[in-house]
């Protein structure tokens, strides 16, 4: 499943335009602790987090993450969105909680 397909399947908002929508997703990872993500996330994963600090982009870049998914319709600073676009990192946003988005993505990846 591709990032763009996930966004339409789950009705997610794409905050970073066309960036990285063709990237294939292999797995999901839910965590709000950056050191945990650095240690444990796999490549090509969608990272579900409520963290919106600009440091999330460094982690995404370092671990070659497919997309960042922000729950609860939380707001991001424009600075973070602009930097993500410049760094070719897709940021998606959903209305559901992290628990629900994890559940939905888990199901979606299983069906592929």
């Amino acid at each position, binding site marked *: 499943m591709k990032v763009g397909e996930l966004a339409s399947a789950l009705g997610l908002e794409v905050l970073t335009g066309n960036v990285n929508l063709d990237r294939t997703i292999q797995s999901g990872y839910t965590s*709000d*602790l*950056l*050191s945990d993500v650095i240690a444990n996330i796999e490549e090509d994963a969608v990272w579900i987090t*409520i*963290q*919106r*600090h600009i440091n999330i982009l460094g982690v995404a870049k370092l671990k070659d993450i497919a997309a960042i998914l922000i729950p609860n319709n939380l*707001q991001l*600073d424009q600075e973070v969105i602009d930097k993500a676009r410049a760094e070719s990192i897709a940021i998606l946003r959903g209305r559901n909680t992290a628990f629900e988005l994890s559940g939905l993505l888990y199901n979606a990846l299983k069906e592929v």
Partner: protein
Amino acid sequence: MAVDTFQFTPKINLEFAIREKDFFVAGESASRVKKTLQQLGMQQEIIKRVAVIIYEAAMNVAIHASHGMLRVFISPEAITIETDDAGGGIPDVDLAMKEGYSTATHEIREMGFGAGMGLPNIRQCADELKIDSKVGVGTLLQATVYFTNR
């Protein structure tokens, strides 16, 4: 003769000392005050708001100040939570109120704090919030929760 129990209940005050980096006391005092309020038979929703304010306010003192006091005043009409600290002070209170704004270190963030939610959480839970801060001196925070519906 009908007795208004509250009328005879003395004002109850609780007090906790908070030292720098003593992060444990924040959660402990929140749990303890919560238990006290449950024993007094207060409404769950009020208790939760008070406990959240105590937790966040005490955590702010432990993170940012060199030492401080947490006081909880319980009267028949309201509960007031006060933190009074000596330490850094807040240069820009409006900015500190902004969700996501934080000056906490990486270490604090990895403990699960410092996401810039503390003061916004307190404001959300309090009916009244007063912050008086002087840079290099300290911060006095007073948050009040009334028992009547908001």
